[in-house]
């Protein structure tokens, strides 16, 4: 970890510290609306990091991360509403549930050599039939949804993951920062190198003694676990869950936008992507509300257009380009 810090050029260190200070101080000046946008920024940065581990580093395309998000959200929320088990304990049950799902998807795919686009289809399929399953699961409210009450005793306390926007803001910030540090550390770890090798050339990776199945499974394990934590946050922030929303493929696409725009396989890409994309998306929603336009799917079109522009102008994402402009791409040796 210290090693990573030392590798950053001086300008990079200053920028990191300044950004972190600004993020910590933001609630002093931000109003409630701006704060809600910033919560989403860090939430998507966090989920982007989780997905980027699997796609950007290990090279495995998942278009079904809504599965782990939804399982995390439903597990923790159901534990609380049904058994009164709080989210801080619930998260440790949500993680293995989502991780197990990830292991099943990974095992089925990679054991039987389902690669690339076909693997992506498999991930979509799993998210879809889990959605259908939850649509009929009476105990969690089926398609009518699962709700967290806002006025039962203790529901507004931080230990039950309830309260005002400040709580969610700092929680999302901590998640995003912690995920970025974790990814930065993993990138420079033996495991990170193995992932890159698997991504770049599986056959050559094998020749370097790498068990590529194992490497991919570990990537999936970490990615699904992290996404489940994001799901717990989602459940207790929105306080209502519908299978048709949380397991939706649109949810999966939302997760992957920030890292693609920001830069696949980079440590700061998901962060930069979320900072750029989320406020733009939210402004669009606000503008449309202001002018009384109600076009469903406008946000998807906007995401699609943004993606096309970025892929055309900067195929490797905004961050690699930005890092060059800021002179941050040369690590000190």
């Amino acid at each position, binding site marked *: 970890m210290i090693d990573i810090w030392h590798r950053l050029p001086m300008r990079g260190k200053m920028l990191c510290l300044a950004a972190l200070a600004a993020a910590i101080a933001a609630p002093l000046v931000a109003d409630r609306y701006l704060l809600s946008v910033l919560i989403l920024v860090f939430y998507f940065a966090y989920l982007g990091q989780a997905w980027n581990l699997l796609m950007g580093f290990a090279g495995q395309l998942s278009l079904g991360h809504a599965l782990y998000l939804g399982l995390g959200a439903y597990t923790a929320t159901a534990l609380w509403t049904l058994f009164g088990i709080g989210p801080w304990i619930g998260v440790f049950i949500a993680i293995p549930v989502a991780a197990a799902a990830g292991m099943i998807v990974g095992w089925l795919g990679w054991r039987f050599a389902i690669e690339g686009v076909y693997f992506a289809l498999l991930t979509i399929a799993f998210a879809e039939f889990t959605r259908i399953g939850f649509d009929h699961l009476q105990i969690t409210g089926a398609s009518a949804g699962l709700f967290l009450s806002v006025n039962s005793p203790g529901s507004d306390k931080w230990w039950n993951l309830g309260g005002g926007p400040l709580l969610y803001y700092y929680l999302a910030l901590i998640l995003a920062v912690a995920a970025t540090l974790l990814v930065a550390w993993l990138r420079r770890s*033996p495991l990170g190198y193995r992932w890159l090798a698997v991504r770049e050339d599986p056959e050559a990776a094998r020749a370097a003694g790498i068990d590529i199945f194992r490497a991919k499974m570990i990537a999936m394990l970490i990615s699904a676990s992290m996404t489940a934590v994001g799901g717990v946050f989602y459940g207790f922030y929105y306080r209502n869950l519908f299978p048709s929303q949380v397991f939706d493929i649109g949810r999966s696409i939302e997760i992957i936008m920030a890292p693609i725009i920001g830069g696949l396989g980079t440590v700061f890409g998901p962060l930069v992507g979320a900072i750029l994309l989320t406020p733009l998306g939210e402004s669009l929603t606000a503008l449309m509300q202001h002018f009384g336009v109600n076009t469903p799917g406008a946000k998807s079109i906007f995401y699609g257009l943004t993606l096309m522009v970025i892929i055309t102008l900067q195929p490797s994402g905004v961050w690699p380009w930005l890092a060059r402009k800021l002179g941050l791409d040369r690590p000190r*040796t």
Partner: protein
Amino acid sequence: MTALLSINGISKRFRGLAAVSRVSFDVSQGEIFAVIGPNGAGKTTLFNMIAGAIPPDEGTITFAGTRTDGLRSDQIARLGVGRTFQLVRPFPALTVEDNVIIGALMQTKTVRDAETIARDTLARLDLFDKRTQIASSLTLPDRKRLEVARALATGPKLLLLDEVMAGLRPTETDRIVATLRDLNRDGLTILLIEHVMRAVTALASRILVLHHGAAIAEGNPEQVLRDPAVVESYLGAESL
């Protein structure tokens, strides 16, 4: 001398075509063993079976006392068999140094140690000054050297080289030959598949000649290269 690698009657058929049929030979500890033969003779198939990329249909392969036929290529690599690919396969988007670090991580658990090994290996193969370059930006000779460096960084007991000299200029060939000879002097056993006879004669202590998947001659270079069957099938009469 003890056999480090023992090949016993291995065969491989592709849809009825016998790519390799009942080939047997031993590679001794510390020697440089060359496999030559015309295109399509089954050299690369043989090589891929030793490296574990494809399983043999029959026969056994024993490396350092362990049966390796049927093992995965990564398991064989971890036993101490390093390999290069005929069509070079560096990790394209990574730096030269990161490529070799990945190899070195097979013999050490920390990235710091792997970096040290990688830098030593790169220095040995004249790539140290290019270590921060992206692998895909290298010239073909450099990429070939990078392949050797990555395989070498895994700390192999046996190095399998699949036509590393092909496409190189004579001066570049001589440089790699000198490097390989140095490595061999330090105790590395090398099995090479090669078309460039200049390199084979300079390096090999023994040669096996494959033709239509079968071994037609084996022995020291002087014997083998004068063998009439070898001359006819591969070298051509004019080479005499």
